[in-house]
């Protein structure tokens, strides 16, 4: 994954085209409470192994993607459009 990301809209593209944001964590509901918000903004599981991460195809289709991959091997399991992922988690 560190060299090429298979954008679901554009195909395999080099890392240079992307902006990486970090863990694909879900934003809490407004009334979720202090602990939930603190955890969202500051705490990270930081797993060694499978991991979902936000990448933005800045120099391509400008879609935000969720890249699922392994932090030990850089093997990629899948790249999905973040809006679709958000839709799934909602339904």
């Amino acid at each position, binding site marked *: *994954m560190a060299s*090429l990301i298979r954008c679901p809209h554009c195909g*395999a593209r080099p890392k240079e085209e992307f902006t990486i944001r970090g863990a694909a964590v879900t934003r809490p509901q407004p*009334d979720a409470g202090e602990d939930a918000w603190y955890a969202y*903004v500051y705490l990270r599981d930081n797993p060694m192994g499978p991991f979902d991460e936000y990448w933005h195809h*800045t120099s391509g289709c400008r879609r*935000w993607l969720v890249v699922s991959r392994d932090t030990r091997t*850089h093997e*990629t399991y899948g790249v999905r459009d973040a809006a679709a992922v*958000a839709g799934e988690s909602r339904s």
Partner: protein
Amino acid sequence: MTAYRLGQGGRIDRSRTLGFTFDGTALSGHPGDTLASALLANNRLLVGRSFKYHRPRGVVAAGAAEPNALVTVGSAGRREPNSRATMVELHDGLRAESQNRWPSLNWDVGALNGFLSPFLSAGFYYKTFMWPASFWEKLYEPFIRRAAGLGRASYHADPDRYEKVWAHCDLLVVGAGPTGLAAALTAGRAGAEVILADEASEPGGSLLFDSASVDGQPAGQFATQILAELATLPNVRLMTRTTVFGWFDDMVFGAAERVSRHVSQPLPGQPQERLWRIVAKRAILATGAEQRPLVFPGNDRPGVMLADAAVSYARRFGVGVGRKVAVFANSDAGARTAASLQAAGINVVALVDARVGHPAAVTVPRIFSGGVVSGTSGSRALGAITVRHAGGEDRFEADALAMAGGYSPRIHLACHRGGKPRWSDAHQAFLAPEGLAGLTLAGSAAGARTLGECLSQGAAEAAAVVADLGHTGTAAQFGAVDGDVPEGSVRALWHVPGGKAFVDFQNDVTVKDLGLAVREGFSDVELAKRYTTTGMATDQGKLSNVNAIGILAEARGVSPAEVGTTTFRPFYTPVSFGALTGSSTGHHFQPVRRSPLHGWAEKHNAVFVETGLWVRSSWFPRQGETHWRQSVDREVKTVREAAGLCDVSTLGKIEIFGADAAEFLNRVYCNAFAKLPVGKARYGLMLREDGMIYDDGTTSRLDENHFFMTTTTALAAGVMNHLEFCAQTLWPDLDVRMASSTDQWAQMAIAGPLSRAILQVIVDEDLSDENVPFLAAKTVSLFGGQLEGRLYRISFSGELAYELGVPAGFGEAVADALMEAGEPHGICAYGAEALGVLRIEKGHVTHAEINGTVTAEDLGFGRMVSQKKVDFIGKHMLEREGLVDAERPRLVGVKPLNPEQSFRTGAHILAKGAEATLENDQGYVTSSAFSPHVGSTIGLALVTRGPDRHGEEVVIWNALAGETVPGVLCDPNFVDPSNEKLHA
């Protein structure tokens, strides 16, 4: 040792002669020579000095692994230190110099280190040079630094060009030796897109010097025939002089092509080097194997070289490495070497086989079975060797010694992605990790030991790959191989006891050093490497690492498997900065963004300044103005008194569409946007989720479902990414879409009391305050309907002001018209500097204040933060103790008590009379400028409880400039606090 050009043979072009110099002496060679072969042909045996003891050294290898023959080639901007003579192709006029010697290669003062060697054992420097402490930097270290290092790099800029290319293929074959050729041929015939890369100038690998034959053809001729067929296949790209240096994630390989290294300067239009990023569906490593040296006393004397190198010099380059050549081996490679050399007409005087009971099928005057070389002698070159054997010791003359210590498959690339090599007792070598997705090894890189095996493995692996990729093809078949001499059994012979035996030639690491490392607790392979520096030279231990591991294993009484290897990391061989940089040099380091009003600014004599990637007009000097301050002061005054025109096209601009655009903006800004009326602009503040301010700007509602946002120049790209993040991941249900229109609009600020009158000349509709009040935003017709633009009544200067956006291409024409219309009113062009002064005078903030650590409250925007909205980005962290701490630095104005005194941005604020300590630090000046309006330097500052301290005297402290200025805190709004001018 006497090396010489053989009367015949080799792949050099004897019909042409090339002149070159080595340490100033004129010598000659032939096309096809490397610098190393040409030096040997000229009987130049001493070619370099080692790193630590400055021992005389000669050529050891014939390829990329060379540890000794490092030279500096070229001059001025083309000077290249540490070039391996074995890889430098000879060309006419080549200038090469030896390194790490003074005053000369023959008489090197540094060689005295050799006498001190008992005191210079591994890691000795960690134990001394500590007293007195101040002597380290003054005395010891400068001496060490001068003594260390190899060649000298140039300080002249490189005159040559470099470039980078992407390539895609089905199959990348690394190495064009027998295995690689067989693989490429198989895949090429099947129709796959193949890239075949080889680091050498001539493809063929070991076929270029192998004495075996294939299907009755000599090996070299066989290679030529396969290459001829490959040339007919349009789907096969052969890349020579191209080193595949790294295997990265997702089957991306890095390769460096030495496009012009073989000529004195690049041909017209050609780069010096080319970096390839090769995206391959599959790859086959056909990288061959590295022959290992043997570690015995005196093994570093010039004249001692690898057996395959000696054969290669004879058969490929037509060079005899000696008149009396001895061979020392721990396998059948010894007999094979002796036979090959003899076949080339070279006199072999002895064969020393470390094994017992392996009769040699070769006739040599002296054959020692179960013998080892236990010593060498000669001044700066080999003269004689001593052989220890069951019957005692023999010493006899030999001027070259060919050593064969077994083979290490070149598995580097296969290990670049974290796989660990496996020790094989059968091979007495490390093999590549198993289970490498997409990459396989074949031939001697995979442990094959004969030419026949290499050919069939290469073809078979390629056939499997192409089948996997959906092509149909069969493994290429070749005729019988004749004269293939397998290595036979290999005796593990990690070192021969006795005197100084070198493991790492370049870094002068001996068997004793490794033993010392083990005794002192550095027995782990990584610690031993770091403590002794074995394997850390420019050859990265290609010849030494496995021997070092064997020696460590012996010392620890374990198997090499247990010792393991250090990590193989890119690069396989060193890669130049030039290749990695490509064409992104000098002015082209980064692209330049030009405003559509760049040409207009040029006409007005602008001085430009880099702002991120943008080039912005900074100020516009007029005749007679000799200092920038004169121009800026004039521009500021003109805006305050008449009018000015400023290019603000670099501000980020975003068109926001959609039924939910208003709701969206309401969530991304901390202040309210849902009810912004059509035709109105509003200042907006964006926070990060941690509650700190992210960016600011104005957003206008052009239509019910169409907004126009401006951002700061610095964060234009960041804000766009952020908005897309919010829209796509947080609230995908909202109908909101964004298009950046930064480049679509030439945007100009027209500011000053006379701006309305000037603008009215080109705007068709009435600009009265009633019709276009403060914060109006609308599409307007210009020049009697010739053009449409967008007009916003907003102000950064505090004056009556507008921003006008017109399609970028028309920007210059419109600016020209405005300047013409404004001329009677005294309009001037003003730049980023004056813009800065005007906004500081008005107390407006930029990213000098919005530095990522300030809250809305800190900047006096506390009341803008909505208390009503249920949610917006940044809302939920705002109430934290640290964000509402009364002691936080907050925005305040600052002036010198004495208007004659000035201060600078970055000065700190101390309470009057307080000692200058960190504890007493109360804040700092974020922005400052000379204000023509106030008549002194003024500043904005973030100061503890600043807004509560207007009128308090403080010290503006700038130790870097030696300035301590008495000052006073004040309202940051220095001009027109009641905003009458703004609303005029």
